[in-house]
């Protein structure tokens, strides 16, 4: 999360107009979600990770690690889809029977799971594209321009800021613990974690409180306004985005028909 935020500010695409990035990432996301074809998902994954690594210059390893976070959840969620439990006979590709119960994997389920895996990965890539290239403040101000209700935006902001403080505090505590020999054996890994868990909320609460005091001291009245960086819409980028999206749409229709 923290690292995502750092890259959002410092990546090589940070000067591109946020509207362009948002249109690109969200339309591609829509296509990836609607299309039923693995090929489209694979193309989206390649386009998005290619852009992130080659254009935005996000280090490969960092991106892979970030990708692994949601992927591990997705894969766990796929297990019940892949494995079916029945009492009757089926044409499973692999199966095991115990006490009249059959655990098995059918080819249809396997295909569904693989499709789902690729589609979700493609969607995650689209969202990461936006998150890694566009700072939250800019996404916010765009949502404001799109006339999304203020309550919704402020709520999103609040969650984001609190999450940020929480994660940052957790990271700080962990570094402090490591530097004094924490997490060096199994036993003190548990004590370290217990300290972290029991003090995280208190510490984050005080930090958040101080932050809000500091904001008030500078005249904060419920809405954070900062000067935004100047961006210019680029006709070239917009045309490239339009062409890419059209090609993707045509492609997914073709795959569907053929």
């Amino acid at each position: 999360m923290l690292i995502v935020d750092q890259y959002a500010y410092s990546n090589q695409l940070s000067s591109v107009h946020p509207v362009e990035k948002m249109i690109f990432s969200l339309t591609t996301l829509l296509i990836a979600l609607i299309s039923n074809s693995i090929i489209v998902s694979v193309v989206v994954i390649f386009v998005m990770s290619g852009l992130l690594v080659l254009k935005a210059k996000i280090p490969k390893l960092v991106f892979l690690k970030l990708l692994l976070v949601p992927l591990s959840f997705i894969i766990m969620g796929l297990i019940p889809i892949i494995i079916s439990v029945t009492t009757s006979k089926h044409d499973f590709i692999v199966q095991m029977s115990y006490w009249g119960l059959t655990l098995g994997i059918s080819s249809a389920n396997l295909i569904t799971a693989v499709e789902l895996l690729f589609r979700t990965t493609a969607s995650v890539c689209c969202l990461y594209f936006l998150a890694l290239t566009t700072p939250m403040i800019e996404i916010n101000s765009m949502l404001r321009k799109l006339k999304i209700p203020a309550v919704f935006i402020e709520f999103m902001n609040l969650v984001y800021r609190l999450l940020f403080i929480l994660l940052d505090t957790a990271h700080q505590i962990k570094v402090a613990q490591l530097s004094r020999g924490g997490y060096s054996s199994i036993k003190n890994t548990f004590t370290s974690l217990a300290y972290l868990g029991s003090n995280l909320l208190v510490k984050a609460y005080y930090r958040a409180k101080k932050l809000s005091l500091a904001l008030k001291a500078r005249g904060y009245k419920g809405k954070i306004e900062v000067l935004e960086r100047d961006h210019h819409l680029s006709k070239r980028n917009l045309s490239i985005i339009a062409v890419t999206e059209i090609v993707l749409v045509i492609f997914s229709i073709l795959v569907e028909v053929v």
Partner: protein
Amino acid sequence: MTEAILATKDISFNYPDGTKGLDDLSLTIPQGEKVVILGPNGAGKSTLFLHFNGILEPEQGSVFFEGQRISYDKQTLTNLRKKVGLIFQDPDEQLFSASVYQELSFGPLNLGLSKAKVKQRVIEAMKVTGISELEEKPTHLLSYGQKKRVAIAAVLAMKPKVIIFDEPTAWLDPQGAEEIISFLEELTANGITIVMATHDVDLAYKWADYVYIMNQGTKIASGIPSDVFQNKSLLEKVSLVQPLVLELYQQLQEQGVVKPNQYPKTKQELLKLIKN
């Protein structure tokens, strides 16, 4: 110079957002000496310190402890962190416990000491840093200077061989700063090596055995204090000033009031030279 207890060789480090933290930096910390690292804000002092106990790993180059190149496996790091104690610049980043007592016990417990031993160490560390009466207070409710003392005590309680001090006297009241410095003298008398980052040139001049000056992630000067602090143009380049005692001494020497090459460290020493 005595044997190096800590050393870096050509280390470079960049933060994830591309900021240059360290740039091809080599330096050695001699065993048992008092070393000061000076440099303007953002020079890379804190970044260097996080390399000394293996929290950060250099992208290029190596860090050495007692002559051994640090490998970043768990065993080596555990061992390193037992011997190299790091006191963070910002105590808010270092403290995490519900009470001062709990905070101080964390490190010694990780050393695998018995409960009785830990208790003894905690009480001792509270005493020398003057925080005994804060024992039960939650760390987040302390004043900044008090937090700084707790942060110092938390590392002292582990009795490391090397203590890395990121601006120990910032935020302390003058008497507190004085106490800490004289306590550091005691530590070095017991053979402990101390590395300190500070912006206080007077302190650096009077206290250090050896001085490094850093700028933009790299070393630009090093030597004994009376040499390094004579180079006015160098000091200006990194927005430092000459120590007051040294500056006065040099001017008095030019006017023939005092003899050359005696380099008083303190006000008292200078006054004595003037009297003679």
